[in-house]
């Protein structure tokens, strides 16, 4: 019994390691790399700013552009309301949504909220962790993004 369990574990580990660990059930990281990162953005200055006729700007827009560069990918921006964008993320039509989300975001059942990449005081002076929204369960992509955020953008201030 115990030996079978051990064998199963080893098998699972080996299977996992061969295709990258953790892996994406829907292959997001593989598809994005060297191609296009489809990002939904909703205005929430100073984190994200949208102006007619200009590409999206703001702190998070810059971070996303940098992240896309590490994947050798173009950013394909989609603008819209938070709810519409999260819906697209759930449906697999977007790879990432930004809009100054915080750790208190109500979307945690619809999206994988990243580990906070910075924590700044909100308008009441309470510490507020800032996060981005990735697709649920695409763990290779999530780990890549979170590692990037943690290593490159610790304690960014707006």
């Amino acid at each position: 019994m115990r030996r079978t369990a051990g064998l199963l574990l080893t098998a699972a580990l080996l299977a996992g390691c061969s295709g990258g660990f953790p892996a994406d059930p829907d292959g997001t990281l593989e598809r994005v790399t060297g191609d296009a990162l489809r990002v939904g953005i909703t205005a929430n200055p100073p984190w994200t700013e949208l102006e007619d006729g200009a590409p999206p700007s703001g702190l998070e827009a810059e971070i996303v552009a940098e992240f896309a560069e590490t994947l050798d990918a173009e950013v394909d921006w989609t603008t819209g309301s938070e709810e519409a964008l999260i819906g697209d993320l759930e449906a697999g039509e977007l790879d990432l949504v930004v809009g100054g989300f915080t750790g208190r975001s109500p979307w945690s059942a619809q999206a994988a909220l990243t580990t906070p990449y910075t924590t700044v005081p909100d308008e009441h002076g309470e510490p507020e962790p800032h996060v981005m929204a990735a697709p649920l369960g695409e763990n290779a992509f999530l780990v890549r993004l979170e590692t990037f955020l943690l290593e490159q953008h610790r304690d960014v201030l707006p």
Partner: protein
Amino acid sequence: MSGRGTAAGGGVTFGHTELPEEQSAALRRAIRLAWGTIAFLLVGVTLVYLVMGSSQAMKAAWAEDLLSFIPPMSFLVAVRFARRRPTTAHPYGYHRSVGVGHLVAAAALLAMGTFLVLDSGSGLLAAEHPPVGVMHLGDHVFWAGWPMIGAMVLTGIPPVLLGRAKMPLARTLHDRVLYADADMNKADWMTALGSVVGILGIGAGLWWADSAAALFISVSILRDGIGNLRVAAGALMDARATTVDGDEPHPLTEQVDARLRALPWVEDARSRVRDQGHVFHVEAFVVPRDGRAPGLRELAEAREAATALDWKVQDLVVVPVDELPEEMLPGVAAAEGEDERRAGAGSR
């Protein structure tokens, strides 16, 4: 009777029943193990909570750890009550506290099992993809699945050892709460292994592995709940005394009958035995030879002979009757004739 009441001096008692040395030692050890289990669970629950993240299997395992607090606590409370002496208001003593503790533990298991089966089942049906990202300690960034697996391995092993230590004590003490607790502890490694497989499954890109592992854990909790509820409710409804696992009639019933039948003045004897929790309550019906009414001394001897059989048999009444009463001993008429030769082996 009153002499026995003050004999408690150094010995441990359950109500009136003074425990033999073996049972006293088992009780002390069981109480130490119950406190040990609670201490371990406090550490385990904290550890698992810290690394749990959004894995369904980890959530199920955590819920099971939380539930595991109930049996050792019920055991400690039940034993405390069971040791009280009978009072005017509680002439049978407080032994039933074991039954109440067992029922509470079983109901908690059943409720949590149902909740978790629905929760993980709906996760599977809705094809929820669990996200497991990274954790960081200082500058070190790593996949959050690894600390989850570490926590499950750490919290999976000690309960198995605790369960193995408690099981023989539960039999010695005839304590159902302790038995249920030991049984759950022993099964804990499956929960831990289930969670580890679920997390490795997430890592391998199999989104359903986690929910499937959670479902497997929840079904085992639910099954524990149903089994325990059946035995606990049965004991509270005065089912005949059974062995501590609830599987077979307790051999003591046969032994009491055989002992009484062996008395020279007894033609036939049958008893009705219910499990009060730890100890039994016995009503022994004896038919004297040739319809001759027994004297007070003979009745006292009969009582002493039966109570000398086992520490669990203290609360015993001997009722002389001219024939065994079918309305109090169901099945007695059917079994007539083969009665004398039914030595040892319990019949269903």
